[in-house]
C-alpha cells in the first residue's frame, strides 16, 4: 500500500515535469520565434481593441483638451521659436529641391527605379502602451487592412522608434528599440565630418534615455553631439532616419573597439501618434 502511494507520487512528479518542460518549450517557441498571428487571434484582438477604443474615446477627448490647454500656455514662445525655424526651413527646402533634381537626373542616368530612402508614410494612433512590461511593445490602430506588413519601420517626428512585429487586420504590434530582446539590433551610422562610422545599436538604458552603439573601429575619433542615423542596410529601416546624438564615447575592456553612448532623439515615454514607413515597390 505504502509502496503503491510512493509510486503514484513518483508518476505525478514525472508527469508534472514533462508537462512543465513541454510548456516551457512551447512558450520559448512562441516568444522567441517570428510567428504570424492565427485568424482566431486576429479576430479576438481586433474585436477587443475596437471595444477598448470606443470606451477610450471620452477619456481621450478630455486628455486632448487638457494637453491643448497646456500647450496654449506657452504659445507665444513657441511662435517665436517657429518663426526662426521657418527661415531655416526655406533654406533647407531650396537645398532639398536641388538635391532631388540631382538625384532624379542621376537615377535616369543609371536607370535606377528604387533607392534605399524611397518610402510612403502611414499615420497611426497608439492604442496600448507596453502592457506586459517586459516586452517593450506598443499596439497601433492600423493593420493589414491598411497595408501594414511585418518588419515595417515605425517612426515619430523626432526619429525611429521600432518596427512592426505582429499584424492583425486592424491593429499591429510595434516592438520598440528599447526592447531588451537580444535579437532586436539595428545598424546605424554616425556622421563624423564628411564620413560615416558604422555600428550596431544594441542596448538601451532607461536612465538618461540612451542607446549603446557597438562594433565601431577604434581608430576613429567621434566627437560628442555627432548625429546618429539608420544605415538602410541589412535591416528594414530606410537610410537616414534620426536615432539620436552621440553623448559619450568609451573604449571596451580590451581596448579593441569603441562603445558609443547615444542620447535618443525620441521621448519613448510619450508615444501617442506614430508613422509607419512603407517601402515603395520597384517600378512604382
Amino acid at each position, binding site marked *: 500500500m505504502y509502496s503503491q502511494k510512493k509510486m503514484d507520487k513518483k508518476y505525478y512528479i514525472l508527469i508534472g515535469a514533462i508537462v512543465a518542460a513541454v510548456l516551457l518549450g512551447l512558450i520559448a517557441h*512562441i516568444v522567441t520565434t517570428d510567428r504570424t498571428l492565427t485568424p482566431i487571434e486576429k479576430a479576438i484582438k481586433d474585436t477587443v481593441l475596437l471595444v477598448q477604443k470606443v470606451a477610450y474615446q471620452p477619456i481621450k477627448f478630455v486628455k486632448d483638451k487638457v494637453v491643448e490647454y497646456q500647450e496654449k500656455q506657452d504659445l507665444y514662445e513657441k511662435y517665436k521659436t517657429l518663426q526662426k525655424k521657418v527661415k531655416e526651413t526655406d533654406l533647407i527646402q531650396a537645398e532639398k529641391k536641388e538635391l532631388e533634381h540631382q538625384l532624379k537626373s542621376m537615377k535616369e542616368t543609371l536607370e535606377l527605379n528604387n533607392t534605399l530612402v524611397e518610402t510612403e508614410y502611414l499615420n497611426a494612433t497608439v492604442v496600448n502602451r507596453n502592457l506586459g512590461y517586459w516586452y517593450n511593445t506598443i499596439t497601433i490602430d492600423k493593420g493589414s487592412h491598411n497595408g501594414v506588413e511585418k518588419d515595417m519601420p515605425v517612426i515619430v517626428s523626432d526619429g525611429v522608434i521600432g518596427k512592426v512585429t505582429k499584424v492583425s487586420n486592424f491593429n499591429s504590434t510595434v516592438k520598440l528599440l528599447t526592447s531588451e530582446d537580444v535579437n532586436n539590433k539595428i545598424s546605424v551610422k554616425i556622421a563624423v565630418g564628411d564620413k560615416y562610422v558604422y555600428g550596431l545599436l544594441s542596448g538601451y538604458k532607461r536612465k538618461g534615455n540612451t542607446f549603446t552603439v557597438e562594433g565601431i573601429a577604434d581608430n576613429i575619433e567621434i566627437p560628442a553631439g555627432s548625429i546618429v542615423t539608420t544605415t538602410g542596410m541589412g535591416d528594414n529601416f530606410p537610410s537616414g532616419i534620426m536615432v539620436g546624438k552621440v553623448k559619450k564615447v568609451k573604449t571596451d575592456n580590451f581596448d579593441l573597439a569603441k562603445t558609443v553612448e547615444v542620447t535618443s532623439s525620441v521621448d519613448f515615454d510619450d508615444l501617442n501618434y506614430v508613422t509607419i514607413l512603407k517601402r515603395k515597390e520597384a517600378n512604382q
Partner: protein
Amino acid sequence: MLVAITLIVSFCFDGIISNFIPLHSQLLIPLLTLMSLLIVYPYFNHHEDDYLKVAGVLGLCYDIVFTDTVFLNCVLFLLVALFIRLLNEWFSNNIFSVGLMAILVITFARILEYSILSLVGFFAFDWMYLFQGIYSSILLNVIYVMLLYVVTDKISRKFHIRKID
C-alpha cells in the same frame, strides 16, 4: 454577474490606463487584470475549478489582445490563481489584507514571468531589472485593488451576493 463585470472592466482599464502612463514609468505600471483575479476569488464560494478556468481564459485573452504570447499569460494567470487560493487560506478578507495580498501576488507574478522569459532566452537575467519590474507595479495596483474591493464589497452587500469572508 459582478465577477464578469469586475473582470471585463479591469481588462479594458488595463489597456486604457496604459495610454496615460509613461512607457518606462518607475511607479505606475498597471496589472489591473491580475488584480481583479484577487478581488473575484471570494465570490466563487469554493467553486475553485470554475475560478481556475476563468483565470486560464482571462490569461489567454490577455495573451492574445495585449502581449501576443499565447499560453504564457494563460499559464501565469493559472499559477497566480493557485497562489491566490493559497493566500486566501492564510489571510482573512478585508481591505488591508487584500492590499497585502496584492503586493505578494505582484511579486510572485513578476518573478515567475521574468524567470520564464529568462529561461527561454528572451533576455539575460538581471536582478535590477526584475526588482524594477516589481516595485514599479506596486503603487498603482495596490490603490486599484483597494478601491475595487470597496466598490465590489458595497455592491455585494446591497444585492446580497454571497462571498467567502
